[in-house]
């Protein structure tokens, strides 16, 4: 259990003879703290601003930014109202400041969705198309942690067939349902997203299906992937999506009598205090460094 005596005491005290305020070897925080603060001023390698930002320095800098006279243009309240703000992407931060600010009113609003790029030939969507026959799929690339992976959009009624093919077809071998999520796209309806992966093949696949609020139901895939059972119950709780064919679609995370409103839908607002938590940082404050 205990450490051999020679290992602990002698080594540490030999390493730090200059720290006089730390007689006990366990008292490392104070000694280290002092050394670190001294270093912070002298180390040029660390970007001081970025390193300080999350720390106490952040508040002060924000106040300074607030005190600066703001550009008297009309786009600031407009940006705050939409909650998005037509900001140039981060790559354009290299531009000199005045130019960037002058360009702001002229900028068109950023697109709300990423452009859809068709996957290259030989991707997993072609294998899928061959496996499921005449089911209509729309394939595009989505970012993966390294590189990209393929996402396919299929019709609601084809989900079971597509996922069964994904699981059973030897060329696809997507036996693992790692995640099932609901997404509320407001005007564009609801979406159910299935993340599949394979243990034997290098590919992954994201299957998506869109549904409307009026007819929010997707056939259950709990029979195909038992892992979907709890995920579907959660999606029903949070988005009110019905999964016909599910063995037991009782509320899972929410109280059993809470079946009338669905927390994760966008029309279900947060409490004011919770919204405030996010809006706490003034829109645009600290934007321009």
């Amino acid at each position, binding site marked *: 259990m205990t450490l051999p005596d020679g290992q602990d005491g002698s080594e540490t005290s030999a390493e730090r003879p200059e720290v006089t305020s730390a007689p006990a070897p366990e008292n490392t925080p104070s000694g280290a703290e002092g050394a670190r603060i001294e270093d912070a001023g002298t180390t040029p390698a660390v970007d001081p601003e*970025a390193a300080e930002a999350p720390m106490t320095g952040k508040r002060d800098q924000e106040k300074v930014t607030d005190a600066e006279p703001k550009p008297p243009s009309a786009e600031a309240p407009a940006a705050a109202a939409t909650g998005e703000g037509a900001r140039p992407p981060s790559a354009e931060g290299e531009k000199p400041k005045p130019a960037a600010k002058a360009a702001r009113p002229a900028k068109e609003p950023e697109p709300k969705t990423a452009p859809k790029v068709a996957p290259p030939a030989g991707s997993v969507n072609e294998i899928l198309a061959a496996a499921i026959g005449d089911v209509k799929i729309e394939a595009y690339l989505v970012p993966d942690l390294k590189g990209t992976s393929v996402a396919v959009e299929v019709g609601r009624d084809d989900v079971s067939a597509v996922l069964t093919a994904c699981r059973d077809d030897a060329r696809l071998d997507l036996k693992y349902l*790692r995640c099932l999520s609901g997404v509320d796209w407001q005007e564009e309806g609801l979406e159910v997203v299935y993340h599949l992966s394979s243990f034997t093949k290098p590919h992954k696949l994201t299957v998506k299906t869109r549904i409307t609020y009026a007819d929010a139901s997707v056939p259950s895939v709990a029979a195909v992937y038992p*892992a979907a059972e709890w995920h579907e119950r959660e999606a029903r709780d949070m988005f009110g999506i019905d999964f016909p064919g599910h063995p037991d679609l009782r509320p899972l*995370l929410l109280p059993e009598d809470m079946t009338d409103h669905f927390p994760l839908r966008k029309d279900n607002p947060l409490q004011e205090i919770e919204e405030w938590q996010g809006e706490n940082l003034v829109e645009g404050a600290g934007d321009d460094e």
Partner: protein
Amino acid sequence: MVTEQHDRSLEVVDIPINMGPQHPSTHGVFRMVLVLDGEVCKDVIPHIGYMHRGGEKLMEAMDFRQGIGYCDRTEYLAQFSAELGYVMAVERLMELEIPDRAEYIRVILTELNRLSSHFMFMGAFGIDAGVFATSFTYAFPQREYIQELFEEVTGDRLMYAYFRVGGLAWEVTDNFVQRVHEVLVHTRQGLRDLDELLTKNEIFMVRCQGIGAFTADQAIAYGLSGPMLRASGVPWDLRKDDPYSVYDRFTFEIPVGNHGDVYDRYLVRLEEMRQSVNIIEQALEQLPAEGPIVAEKLPRRLRTPPGEVYSKVEAPRGEWGVYLVSKGGDKPYRLKMRSPSFCNLSALREMCIGQFMADAVMILGSMDIVLCDVDR
């Protein structure tokens, strides 16, 4: 007194027994209804949601930097893994390049976190198995050494929020490398102690072996991950099979079980801890002595372009996934946390049916769930 003529034939009924939500064996606020035939479970109905705080909804209102803190509060025994999964998702959408030194420190801390989390498992699981507090007293001091190191580095005991989008919050302490070496001495000793105490302990073996066994096919179908999946014989570890961060620069083994039972899950975790020590040693050797710890040109207000990404890390309990959908701006449009505890727990019913009631406790213990992580 007139006695009625009773029907003397035995009537057999299944007895539902409620267990939890406040029960020492449920490792948190978790309730399950066991439908018993004698001592055998005929059905198990888990009830979760007691700790549900609507984290996914709350994170839609927080900007990307604020969300990091919520990850800590969700997976409070493997905070660094949770933070890493989240910041990697944002970094991928922002296409940030993380400096090497930050990546190595992340790996070292995440692996130390795996050790501390598994020490927690060893202690708690011993209690489930009837070793009483002995395993706890051996495991917890070792966990405490690691906690102390985390406290020195991050300034906090549990809610670190130390991994930031683009790198780290601040530089580690000057004697960090030396301190990690010191902690590893204790860790190795703790591993030896627990190995001697539990692995060949006859009572422990009888209590664990052959219980709650899952085949590889079942484990895959139910979406198990982490040690639960590997104990069933599937050699799948995201650190090796889908490497993120700098894990592809280390050599380590993936322990795999043969039987998929509770005992194998214990063995897999024990071996995993040795491999974690191995990884940390390599990372300490390769750690650049100095260099930036934050990505260059990091804007003060984090904004992602529109898009989506599914980020995943191998957390101590399995695959911690973050499905981040952004419409542009500084907040997630939708954030789904795929927590390993949630997915592993969904197989509880299947695992417990046909087992003794006392073994249901062992099976639940072997899952090593974190209820905050289940309920989010």
